């Protein structure tokens, strides 16, 4: 990762900016300029909810160069509320604390700390959604 590339990716990495087809309303992540659904080239940027559920997950016991921190971490295929699917790392989760169907939400986390030019790269990861306990607010 280098600075110009990182800057270009920030809308997607920081707030899940996607592209919505103005003709058929299908949402695409990553953004693309031509709709896979209907072929229209008229797209508008939208921000995804970041709310979804785990369709599948894997535990990585080897990492690519520059991602040694990822050894032992979980990767997931996630389906967001909007119907969009993406692959991302999970965070704030115990090794055995995940299952298929788990509800997750996007959080901004460090992706790597030793990229070129000393860059620290941040981007989306997902964590399990904790259910709020009913009445908890009233007691506080």
């Amino acid at each position, binding site marked *: 990762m280098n600075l110009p590339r990182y800057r270009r990716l920030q809308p*997607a990495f920081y707030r899940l900016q996607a592209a919505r087809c103005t003709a058929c309303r299908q949402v695409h992540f990553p953004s693309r300029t031509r709709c*896979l659904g209907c072929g229209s080239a008229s797209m508008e940027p939208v921000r995804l909810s970041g709310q979804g559920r785990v*369709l*599948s997950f894997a*535990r*990585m*016991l080897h990492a690519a160069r520059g991602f040694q921190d990822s050894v032992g*971490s979980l*990767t997931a295929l996630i389906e967001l509320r909007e119907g969009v699917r993406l*692959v991302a790392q999970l965070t704030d989760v115990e090794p055995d604390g995940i299952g298929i169907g788990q509800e997750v939400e996007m959080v901004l986390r460090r992706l790597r700390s030793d990229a070129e030019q000393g860059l620290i790269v941040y981007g989306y990861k997902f964590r399990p959604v904790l259910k709020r306990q009913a009445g908890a607010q009233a007691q506080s």
Partner: protein
Amino acid sequence: MRPVSIIGVGQTPVGEHWQKSLRELAVEAVQAALADAGVERPDALFAGNMLSGGLCEQENLATLVADFSGFPGIEALKIEAACASGGAVVRAAHMVVASGAHDLVVAVGVEKMTDLGGDGVTSGLATAADADYEAAHGITFTALNALLMRLYMERYGYARRDFSPFVITAHENGVHNPQAMFREAIDEKDFLDSPMVAEPISILDSSPVCDGAAAVVLCPTEKARSFTERPVQILASATATDTIGLGPRKDPLWFESAYLSAQRVYQQAGVSPKDINFFELHDAFTIVSALSLEACGFAERGQGVRFAQECNIHRNGKLPISTQGGLKARGHPVGASGTYQILEVVDQLRGRAGEAQLGNVRIGMAQSIGGMASVAVTHLLGVEV
């Protein structure tokens, strides 16, 4: 378009070639293929390769190989389609000969992977995925395949153990291939005990990092018999693509590229899956074998693993696969594997597969898959009996 045949093949053993460089491997395979074909000088050379830039700091690869093979001056181009590069290079050479642009073309697939440490190779392989939206998130290629394997197990109700027939069969067959990296049979216990790479994928679900080169020589079918008594015709050749990322697919457990390229070759050759005698498939991971069998119409959706469990894939089964070890046991020097597959199909059809020889085969299929099946190259080869 004119019919095209393969008139010669050559390969290096697959393994960790500490004494041989990228160029030496490629040149060795090219020279062996040309000698087998009885061709002194080809009109053009195509080099299939995925990672020469990233792993060996060498691009302009086809020029290098043409030069050191002794043919500076000829047309030479590199063909890259991730892990399917070795199939794609044969596809490219086929198009060139079929079109009439050249008569004698050598296609060589080569990969030199072992000079770099494990994490460097892992990074290199991740470039087959979406660099910005998969690899940049630290997600390895094996992890992406592991997502598919768990989804498959969950949806169709399989356990890890159910995938073992793919691995046991490949290793059984590898024993009979003197060029294979692994020539030892393994059993189900070995499979179940093997350490995880990206859970639920273990070392033995995966194909090994290694070096190797394989080459084939193509010419118009009408001229093939002037070079060899036993040419093998390319009955059909097709490539197809899918989205590069897993996310945008309607069903992640459906390999559309494998399906489309298989449909195209069946149509070109006027055959159906039941006409295929054996299948060199892309067994880079056990889950990929299952999904390839389903996409190509050999098994229903969700039945690829059952198809293997029912002994169909053995050398005496309905559809022998990985007949000389496959990517799993012969080895998977990524950009060369697709060319090894073609060479092995040719050897079987010419009756030159030695101890790995199948009886009575007329039509063989090879399918090379790149990325997360974002690209697939499929060939049908045949001989008259």
